């Protein structure tokens, strides 16, 4: 059951204020991810303070890096159920967890950060892994 919107609104705002585009419907997801070329970071937001409380600041830090994905989008697990299910349909074999992050290049997942890779880690540490993935996958040619 979704949490009250008043409770999650600040968590949505934390993502959009750093430049992430929030996708709240299936159509939003298909438009942003479905046919996207280039690189897309999809952040699966969560109310869970255990992990999401460090994940959101980590994304913000990573987005200050010199090499970035072409776009950053976010869906909210437990809140926008259809949009999240649709986003996860683009993640292939990677299993659902939240929070989590998928870096896609030309529609394929090239890097995935599961919840278990976020739990108990500092934002700095998570951001360092993310920027390493940006350097690996976001700096070269992406399309033929």
């Amino acid at each position: 059951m979704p949490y009250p919107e008043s409770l999650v609104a600040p968590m949505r705002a934390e993502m959009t204020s750093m430049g992430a585009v929030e996708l709240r419907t299936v159509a939003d997801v298909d438009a942003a991810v479905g046919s996207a070329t280039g690189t897309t970071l999809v952040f699966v937001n969560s109310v869970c303070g255990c992990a999401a409380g460090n994940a959101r600041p980590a994304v913000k830090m990573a987005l200050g890096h010199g090499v970035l994905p072409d776009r950053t989008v976010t869906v909210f697990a437990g809140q926008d159920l259809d949009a999240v299910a649709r986003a996860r349909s683009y993640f292939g074999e990677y299993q659902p967890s939240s929070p989590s992050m998928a870096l896609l290049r030309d529609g394929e997942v090239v890097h995935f950060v599961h919840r278990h890779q976020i739990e108990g880690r500092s934002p700095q540490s998570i951001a360092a892994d993310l920027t390493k993935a940006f350097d690996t996958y976001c700096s070269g040619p992406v399309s033929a």
Partner: protein
Amino acid sequence: MSGHVFHPGHHDLHGITVVLETNSGLWVGRFDSVTPKGVLLHDAGCYEDGVTEGTREEYLRKTLKFGVRATVKNKLIPEQDVRGIRQLAEVSA
């Protein structure tokens, strides 16, 4: 909002993805609590010795890469069946 925790005062492992070993296999899931009836996990998947394909190590390697393939929303494991608990993140690939 960053760092906000909705569930203070819980077990140290609350919310952490753990590997719980039993005599007959493994359960991997999000630790909730220790109740009088056992250890409660959420969104848990399992490896059963002699039933699940591959070895325990292979199952964990796949779980580390692709995440927990959850088969049950809630799983209560009697305490007497628990042989050990560790964080999934501490498992070497």
